[in-house]
């Protein structure tokens, strides 16, 4: 169990200071105090939260729309399903590089296309706010695959009879969606929400490769900071403390979501 030992060690380490050259020293809560006074820590936390709040709705809505489309009985459905999943299958590092080229200020395709319709080149990756937007967009794109499959599974478990009954009662497509499909999708929605949150909060690769946490720390995330502390400065104590904070946040939010689930989600009895 490569997990229990390290977790305990992580908790212990977060109360210590260790820079690998000397032996570990117990410093109590100093690491945590240091964190709460550290503006970079709060910046990274804020960035991670902004990122998560941006990616999750975008990705969930997009993937739901695509799943709804894929749910029809069309020919070549399997082909389209494969195609729509391709972004997720590729390495996020590779895709970060591709999108970095797309967003390039002078030679990127995006600015080129905008130029064709008379819009000035946008400094996508050169300004903190825009850079975050770029990262969010790219991540939402890259990760739609899993939610699509989960939505599809959820959609296919909705009995055809309910939709037929609604149709017979004169409900149009939107009404059918809102009053039959959506409520019955609640378990799936919830599951995707939980999974997406857990993985979004751990964002690292995109910000490391595409923007290096910049510009001006605009896309610097929690895991970016953990990595830098632990593996470039070898400051293991604070890094562990941050790791613990990350774990606690994810755990708490997930538990809150589980609580809410009992009130909002109705499972078939």
């Amino acid at each position, binding site marked *: 169990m490569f997990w229990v030992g390290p977790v305990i*060690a*992580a908790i212990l380490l977060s109360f210590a200071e260790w820079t*690998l050259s000397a032996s570990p020293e117990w410093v109590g809560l100093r690491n945590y105090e240091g964190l709460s006074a550290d503006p970079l820590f709060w910046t990274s936390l804020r960035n991670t939260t902004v990122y998560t709040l941006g990616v999750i709705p975008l990705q969930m809505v997009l993937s739901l729309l695509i799943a709804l489309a894929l749910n029809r009985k069309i020919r070549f459905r*399997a082909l389209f399903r494969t195609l729509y999943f391709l972004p997720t299958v590729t*390495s996020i590092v590779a895709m970060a590089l*591709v999108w970095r080229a797309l967003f390039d200020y002078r*030679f990127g395709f995006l600015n080129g296309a905008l130029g064709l319709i008379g819009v000035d080149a946008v400094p996508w990756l050169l300004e903190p706010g825009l850079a975050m937007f770029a990262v969010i967009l790219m991540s939402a794109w890259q990760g739609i695959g899993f939610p699509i499959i989960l939505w599809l599974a959820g959609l296919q478990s909705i009995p055809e009879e309910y939709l037929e009954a609604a149709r017979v009662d004169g409900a149009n497509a939107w009404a059918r969606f809102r009053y039959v499909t959506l409520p019955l999708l609640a378990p799936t929605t919830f599951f995707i929400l939980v999974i997406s949150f857990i993985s979004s909060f751990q964002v690292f690769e995109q910000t490391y490769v595409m923007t290096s946490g910049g510009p001006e720390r605009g896309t610097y995330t929690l895991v970016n900071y953990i990595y830098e502390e632990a593996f470039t400065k070898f400051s293991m104590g604070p890094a562990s403390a941050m790791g613990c904070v990350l774990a606690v946040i994810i755990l708490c939010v997930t538990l809150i979501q589980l609580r809410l689930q009992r009130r909002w989600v109705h499972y078939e009895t």
Partner: protein
Amino acid sequence: MRPDARREPAKLQRGVGTVPGGHMLVSATPYLLYVIVALTILAPLLYMLSTSLKTLLDSMKYPPDLIPDQPVWRNYVDVWSTIPLAQLFVNSVKVTGPSVIGTLVTCSLAGYAFARLKFWGRDVLFVLLLATLMIPYQVTLVPTFLFFNEAGLVNTYVPLILPNWLAPAFGIFLMRQFFRTIPRELEDAAKLDGCAPIGIYWHIFLPLSGPPMAALVIFEFLRNWNNFLLPLVFLQEPEKMTLPVGLAWLSGQHFSNVPLMMTVTTISSLPTIVLFVFLQKYFVKGVVLTGLRG
């Protein structure tokens, strides 16, 4: 199970009369929409492909061409000598191969144990296992690194492969969910024949486990092949880098050479795409298996 979409005729849209030839017209429209959506989603990948076939000069044209006038296929030949791509590939295989095998072996055994064997604390342990899926691995990264550092195993592939031989939680979960669906009569028959639990595993469960194993193969292959943080942390020599890390590292030197970078990313995306295309059916089933229980 729903009937296979391909064996059913496409549904006519409501409100369309029976105009001769109208069937063809109408059923073309949804396809067009799907194709447009597909193109939009694949646009970055198409851009990657098209840029990889341009010369450096071409790629800097503003606005850029969609399809290059003269595709430079040579880029795909040159890249192997400009960048140690082959080395990166080999390294990735060295890591991913044993990892996936380890996962298959240990997870199927563990999944079987959790599904069918009775032992003290089984269900508690399983819930604990699920809980670990919620904890991000970055938390245990630091202590794990320290552990391997003390053992002198940093800068080897051991830290990347070993955890996969200790039955990753996700794999156990997948296999257990699947094994629970196997009818007990099969087991009972084997027990009557005097089969020990390990024999039951070997003769009954293992042969039946094709589909979930295929799903697990894809999941784990993708996870290991595309993993960036772990090799970044544990590997310290450029010669040992795996594909994602090598890609990022090289992009620092070569980024201005956009066609080269695009060629590299195209080539490095191929293995996972090919694997997925072949095993996608199992992949979907695997995701559903984990999702249904919520």
